[in-house]
């Protein structure tokens, strides 16, 4: 009998951020449920965008290496 792996996979759906009582609440994807101060949320947002740009570069670098 084989047991298939269902480990958590990268999310393709974005989380949803909202403001509540002067704080930022991030819900989802999946089990994500956190509350941040506005400052922490801004820094997290900037860090996420920076990491996303780097990840996209990694994808395009990988694709160009495959073409060579």
């Amino acid at each position, binding site marked *: 009998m084989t047991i298939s792996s269902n480990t958590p996979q990268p999310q393709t759906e974005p989380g949803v951020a909202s403001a509540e009582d002067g704080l930022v609440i991030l819900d989802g994807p999946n089990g994500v*449920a956190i509350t941040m101060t506005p400052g922490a949320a801004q820094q997290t947002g900037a860090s996420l965008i920076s990491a996303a740009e780097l990840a996209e570069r990694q994808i395009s670098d990988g694709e160009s290496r495959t073409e060579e």
Partner: protein
Amino acid sequence: MFTERFLRHRRGVHLDVDERARVEASISEIRTLPPRTNIVMAGDVLSQSMLLLEGFMSRYIDDRNGLRQLVAVHVPGDFVDLHAFPLKILDHDVATVTAATVAIVPHSALEVIARDMPALTRKLWFSTLIDAAIHRAWLFRLGRLDAVGRVAHFISETNVRLMSAGLSDGRRFALGLIQSDLAEICGLTNVHINRVLRQLREERLCVFRSSLVEILEPEKLAARGQFDPAYLYIDLQSAESPSSRQRPNP
């Protein structure tokens, strides 16, 4: 009878008259405890266990900053720290949430039961296995569910547990928890819990007000929390019968 709620309406296990009488006879003392009071601290050496008769209790672990994670909530009928009988030292603290009444059962009396009554011993073991099943469900809740799902799951679970104890009619029960307790159960901040409760109310699934819970749509709430009561081993049909109910305390 002090033990009437213990293992009540559980599938696959039933205490007969002699067994229930033996557990009753093992009680050395009935103790009334004030709310929000630490009863057992991690590391204490224990020589007794507590059967919860009235009220709510919790087990919890604080992080190094003093922030609390509730790892269990106990309802009337639960043998709160029966696992202390073999362990002797707990790895977590136990506290009252509301005022509570407990029956004290010395470990020496449990030793006699373990020696003389193997069938009853298996039933006591069964009750700690239900605790373990609930822990697994709590892990699932925190690991896989979003904020609304976590709260929906907890309320659905507590509703079924209280139905078994005769303290919920399946839609309405007194919970005795405040929003910050829900936050510590679900790993959420107070503001997040507040928002989730508002969302559940706006979606007409559940209303939580002054520690009184009213479930408007039990099946939809359970679906929202991916809650399947099978792990509680409760015979829902007998738990739902009108004769098994008591009126929830306002």
